[in-house]
């Protein structure tokens, strides 16, 4: 129902921010608008309803950026969920050993680092615009000195890259195992 086209303002985001109270939802709307993030107040469907009867529809892809903005403006929220499908972000991480390098795959993102130096050799996969940017920022840096994708990124792709990054750091600190 939420995904039908022809909505009043034409906005289809696919993500919901849930709040405890109507006041918090209104504050959230103002905070995101001030930061230029597209959103609109909606009634959450019964199966997703937690807290109050008002939620914010956002572009789900921008979940990390929205979380960061709401926290920086001290607007409390319960959760950010997709409006349909699996409510949980993918947790599965797959590891490929190339001998001197290790590739860690999380969702649609892959990070490859040198086992001995921890230097980021390559980042592949993804499709959101912060990925080439993060690629440029992280490449050729040791994992422990590379910027954390979660802190610089704005999209779900950056969140997946962050998963790969955290796992890579752990593998490297354990001697590449």
């Amino acid at each position, binding site marked *: 129902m939420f*995904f039908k*086209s022809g909505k009043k303002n*034409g*906005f*289809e*985001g*696919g993500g919901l921010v849930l709040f405890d109270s109507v006041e918090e939802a209104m504050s959230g709307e103002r905070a995101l608008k001030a930061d*230029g993030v597209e959103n609109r107040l909606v009634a959450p469907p019964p199966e997703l309803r937690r807290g109050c009867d008002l939620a914010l529809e956002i*572009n*789900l*892809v*921008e979940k990390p*950026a929205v979380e960061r903005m709401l926290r920086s403006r001290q607007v409390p929220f319960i959760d950010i969920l*997709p409006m*349909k*499908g*699996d409510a*949980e*972000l*993918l*947790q*599965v991480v797959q590891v*490929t050993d*190339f001998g*001197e*390098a290790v*590739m860690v*795959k999380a*969702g*649609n993102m*892959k990070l*490859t680092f*040198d086992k001995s130096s921890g230097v980021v*050799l*390559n*980042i*592949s*996969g*993804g*499709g*959101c*615009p*912060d*990925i*080439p*940017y993060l*690629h*440029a920022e992280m*490449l050729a840096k040791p994992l422990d000195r590379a910027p954390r994708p979660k802190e610089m*990124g*704005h*999209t*779900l*792709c*950056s*969140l*997946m890259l962050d998963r790969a990054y955290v796992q890579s750091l752990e593998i490297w600190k354990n001697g590449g195992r």
Partner: protein
Amino acid sequence: MLLICGTAPRKDLPLTQGEASLHGDTLRINGAAIPCTQGTAALISAAIKTAEYLGQPPPQALLVGDDGTGKGSRLLYEHLIGNLPRLAPRVVVLHYMLPVMGLMRKVSESASKAARRPFMIADAAAMYAAKAAGIARDFDLFTPDLSELAFLADPQATHPAYVSRHLFESDSTRIPELVAAAYANRSAARTLVVKGATDHVAQNGRILDTVSEPNVPALEAIGGTGDTISGMVGAFVHGGFGEVTAARVAIRANRMAGLYAGATPATRIWQVIEVLPRVFADHLDDWARQAGDASMERSAS
């Protein structure tokens, strides 16, 4: 015109359209220098090399800086919505951009207003947006990798980060099943080029070709090796190849380029792109002949 649209990892790059040229590891468009790295820069660079080999004009690039905030992406969407019919490209490749369902739907509507709808290719987040907006069938060709194919096969997911675990954990032996599901959900373009340990070409639900040799495992680690396939397919289609022939040739050329470049997990994508002319010179005629009669397929020419 082959029009390639996407974002570049430079905050200061305004919306820029122009002929693209490649100089070593640097792409130049209207005086702007963009490093040939993972993303749309790699796609454009592979298309340049392919067009050059075919004796075709270089692609037109429509690029904008975006670090993920989506501001540049929105400018790009709005420009396409307002100008696609006037630009009248024969082939459009949509690539890295913030996926915004409503805007992608309008881009597709705008393409239909051209005297002849362009041949529409989507990869990366442009493909995510087309699938999430329910307009995948309006596109001619998608180029997903295995995780993105799982996303196309999941009728509920609006981004690959929310794919059902059982679909994500599929290995390449389940590609035919995922391809069938993607078509059944109407989440696939007419033609799919699935990039992976074994590449697959499918059309309207039927797998037409698979390739696993030469096997260069390091290619998966190199950022941009999927983008190069999309760039080559776009340039081959623009050069008059049927879309299936273009796909068959591109997946073979990509693997062979990995071999020629001696790819390791540390190889940079420009090093793979730079060997493409040698790969084409050695193999293109044979591959095109083996790929079948191009005139049997729809061509953009």
